[in-house]
């Protein structure tokens, strides 16, 4: 018996609707280095945040401030090539012991904006 177009379309539709999908519309951090609230024994060279959606590099920024509120990161941050536009990175010089805040602001490929911040420490 030859399958009819209707049956094939039905099976195709069923298969298509059974595909598991996990979409993220707005971009949020998936993980970061250093981690949120981490206490480090030595200064990191870079601050990196991996996001759960593609980013528009044009509208992304990543800055690090010390406890006095001064910017200590070397650059304004950039989306790393080859990361599927999901990794935001900035370089930092050798940081002295203390408390630091990481400020991130991104626009996902769907055009929606999110921003946030977190803290990490460097021990003596």
């Amino acid at each position, binding site marked *: 018996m030859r399958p009819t177009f209707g049956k094939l379309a039905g099976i195709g539709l069923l298969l298509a609707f059974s595909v598991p999908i996990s979409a*993220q519309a707005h971009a949020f951090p998936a993980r970061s280095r250093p*981690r*949120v609230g981490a206490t480090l024994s030595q200064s990191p060279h870079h601050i990196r945040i991996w996001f759960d959606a*593609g980013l528009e590099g*044009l*509208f992304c*920024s990543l800055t690090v401030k010390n406890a006095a509120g001064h910017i200590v990161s070397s650059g304004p941050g950039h989306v790393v090539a080859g990361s599927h536009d999901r990794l935001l990175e900035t370089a930092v010089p050798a940081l002295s012991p203390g408390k630091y805040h990481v400020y991130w*602001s991104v626009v996902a490929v769907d055009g*929606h904006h999110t921003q946030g911040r977190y803290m990490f420490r460097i021990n003596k």
Partner: protein
Amino acid sequence: MPRHTLYVAISAFDIGAIATVVGALSCRLWIVPSAAIEHFHQRLWRLLGVGLFGLTVSSLALLIGRTMEMSRQPLARVWHWLPLVVHETQFGHVWLARPPVVLLMWAVWLVGRRPSHGGVAGVLMFLAVGIIAFTRSATGHPVDLGPWTFPEWVDWVHLMGGAIWAGSLLVMTFSVFPTLTDPDISVATRATLVKNLSTVAATALAVILVTGLWSAYHYLNQWGSLWHSTYGHTLLVKLFFVLGAIALGALNRFVYVPRIRAAAHNNSSPLIPARSAQTDPLRLLTRSAAVETVVLLVVLVTAAALLHDMPPRDARANGINSMARAHDRYPTSYPRLERAAVRPMANPSAIPTVRYGVLDFPGHTTYSTGPSKLSTDAIPLRRLPRRVLPISPHRLEA
């Protein structure tokens, strides 16, 4: 006017223009019987031109609006960003498809003004407006999985189905129904026309229901989010009006259309006699279709509002309450724009989370999902019951 409202208005205008073009083409290709094409072609083509003009304006407005939304700059500063957005963002790359397609549509529209060319021109324009509609799906919520993914296609089919349904009724109300009672339109032609309209609308509705249900569940994550999120509330308003439109459509299909067809079979005019004008099925159908059109325009606006809301799926996935919106109406500084307004990151409200530190949502009422163990600088916020949006233990990173 709040910026969020402006973005919703631009999206609604763009969808409305797409619906008008799709509706005019649907009427030209599928609804108006060939026997009456000569009679209606000029009117349909004129309205198609109006829709095309709207699409031209909305394409420009969309670029400006989306640039304002992404850059969070006021209109006066947005011009600097336009070329950067066009050349360096995914939205810009997709948007670049619009100008040539719109220009092509204008050329085809000019050629198709003659009724004899209308058929081929209509098919070409339908394909072109399908591309325009896809640029919407490829730059909205569905795009985060990447280009050409299943949610994008579902969104596109849903948009086209909605445009056929709402657009056909809109065009019928403005262009066809007013002259349907002309003496040179035969009773049989009228009956065929309303039957075609009913068939096209019913088919489009079936497509809309399947794709709409899938999309609703996909973005809600769970049906309970209908009651516990801004997105869900907007969706409920949309569903309310969709049900109203379905009820009106059912009235048309199962009451008025059979009466009109019965009148055609009896070879008598469905437009009868002044004394029974109140029950004249064609006039009642015309009135009912006009009301249905208005209801569907409200649906269109709610659909545009959903495009600019945060779906509960994201909120849940990220452990934040979905009453929050991720829009920021305060300008901030960007490394790429020297002349941008440089202001410190605004922080009137924020969400402390265990995983990310603090998420800032300036200008909107936001709630915490639970105590933050790590964000020592978190602003104290009202706590919601954990059952609303719990943060599962595996999310703890530090």
